[in-house]
């Protein structure tokens, strides 16, 4: 039995070693410290609010957030009244009683509006590129939030000898597109003026929007972590009890 486990462990230890030896071309994405990671991970409400401000002021003109409704913003620490006021800043098409096109103010049940009426329009406005919807972006890319943060701050001059195509921009983390991305660098120091007075360095803005978008992708993260912790305590006690019960029942055999 021990031998089996040892052999299995040896095999399992060898395989990842051989895998890492062959994986070469991938871009290394440095790991960042996030408040939401780990077993007790949580979102910082003020950071989420700053991230929402960045989304609204910087990203929203090109990127949608279609899975997120205004009502969800209460999770960011806003009151119902604040969310109502936030929604009312948007206008949505509707019909009047005669069936004519009019607009109405946004309600908390509305979702963030799409920036473009359709894909063709979006591509035509962006040099042929389609700005992706951001609702799930931190889950939809290899590397997740780390990747997003470094992509947003990964703009620099192209290396010697590399020609960047017209309308494209060099980004050292955009490996999927041969390091040429249609989105220009968006984040700069003092790009936004934070309502809470936080100094808006490029790094700070990138972190705030990343945390906000991770909330958008995984709004139940906090409930998931805390429920998981409680379930785990239950399971550990259950398993220990089951073990002792098993020992006790099997002890009957030795008595025979």
């Amino acid at each position, binding site marked *: 039995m021990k031998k089996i486990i040892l052999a299995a462990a040896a*095999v399992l230890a060898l395989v990842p070693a*051989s895998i890492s030896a062959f994986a070469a071309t991938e871009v290394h994405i440095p790991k960042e410290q996030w408040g939401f990671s780990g077993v007790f991970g949580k979102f910082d409400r003020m950071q989420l609010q700053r991230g929402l401000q960045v989304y609204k002021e910087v990203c929203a003109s090109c990127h949608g957030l279609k899975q997120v409704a205004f009502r969800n913003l209460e999770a960011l620490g806003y009151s119902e009244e604040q969310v109502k006021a936030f929604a009312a800043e948007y206008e949505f098409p509707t019909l009047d009683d005669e069936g004519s096109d009019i607009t109405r103010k946004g309600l908390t049940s509305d979702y963030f509006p799409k920036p473009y009426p359709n894909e063709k329009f979006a591509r035509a406005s962006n040099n042929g590129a389609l700005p992706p919807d951001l609702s799930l972006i931190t889950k939809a890319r290899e590397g997740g939030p780390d990747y997003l943060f470094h992509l947003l701050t990964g703009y620099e001059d192209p290396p010697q000898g590399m020609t960047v195509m017209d309308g494209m921009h060099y980004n050292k983390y955009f490996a999927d597109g041969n390091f040429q991305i249609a989105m220009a660098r968006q984040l700069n120091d003092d790009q936004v003026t934070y309502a809470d007075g936080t100094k808006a360095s490029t790094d700070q803005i990138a972190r705030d929007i990343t945390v906000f978008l991770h909330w958008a992708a995984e*709004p139940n993260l906090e409930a998931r972590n805390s429920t*998981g912790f409680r379930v785990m305590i239950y399971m550990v006690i259950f398993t220990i009890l*089951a073990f002792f019960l*098993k020992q006790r029942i099997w002890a009957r055999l030795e008595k025979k």
Partner: protein
Amino acid sequence: MSTEKSVWQKAFEWHEARLPLVSFVDNAVGSKYPAPKNLNYFWNFGFLAGFVLVLMIMTGIVLAMNYVPHKDMAFDSVERIMRDVNYGWLIRYMHANGASFFFIVIYIHIFRGMYYGSYKAPREVLWWMGIIIYLAMMATAFMGYVLPWGQMSFWGATVITNMFSAIPLIGEPIVTWLWGGFGVDNPTLNRFFALHYLLPFVIIGLVVLHIWALHIPGSNNPLGIEAAPADKIPFHPYYTIKDVFGLGVFLIVFFAIVFWLPNSLGHPLNYVEANPLVTPPHIVPEWYYLPFYAILRAIPDKLLGVVAMFGSILILFVLPWLDTSRVRSATFRPVFKLFFWLFFANGLVLGWCGSQLAEGLPLIIGRICTFWYFFHFFVIVPVVGWMETPRPLPASIGSSVLKAAE
């Protein structure tokens, strides 16, 4: 103490005399099923597989209440489950990760059978039922992965269904028939949903046959020798409580993934809605298919690749006859034991090859490992059976236990 039976006892006996449901269960997995007393923890995995099957059906039914099998709504309906359905995120993460854990459990179960020779006479049909369950599981999991209608759903479905076009003459019509059109589209999604809901119940039927076939010869054991009646103990309470403890350990690992790393076994691209106009640069199936995907791509000819891939599983049907050794357990087969672990490692490396682009070193390694996969079954297993001198078998399970105690 009164010898008078209570009303409840009488009612129970009245019912059992007419439909002996409780006796049926008691005979199947209860106190009337004698099992060898030396079963180790690798024998927990049959029960665990059954548990996960029930978990998948229960979570799946709730998901089906909220899921919309339409190409324009499937992706968003899954997101609605994740965001707006009460505990929808938990149900879906249990279902998605449950599929992975189902395969982890089943692979351990299959390898346990291979190590201890559980496929050998008189358990060949039991082994066959197991393989058929495994095939049904693969079909079910494949169709389930298509339902969220993400990029990997769509393109995985396209690649896998296209394999059938390799069949000469009727290949193309078969693929069109499978799709219900001229590409993976709404009809494909509809029928995959219907079949994904149906097949688990077929698997339940197959599990009944599997357990039925188990009861004819009874359970194998780590020594691989026939268990004398004196060496058997009732399944309940001894193995039921052992299974409950094993279930606790399993659920600790399972819930750790479900609650804290729920997306670690999935592919990020499946959080991008399916787009028939954008092909991902690197289409990979779910991790549990990777060894077979590597075999498919190791062979330059499409038809032969498909034949090899299906053959790699179908070959398991004849394993009881390829294995010429009459000793079941690898415990007494030093040479076979070595090759067993080599085969196991070969499977892991094949899995890695399947996750890489089919070019350069991974392709070469994939070809070597594909060769070894078949070489193991066609040459190693029969030849080792002939040549090997097994260690002496104990006369009985009881005598082996006594010996170990000395």
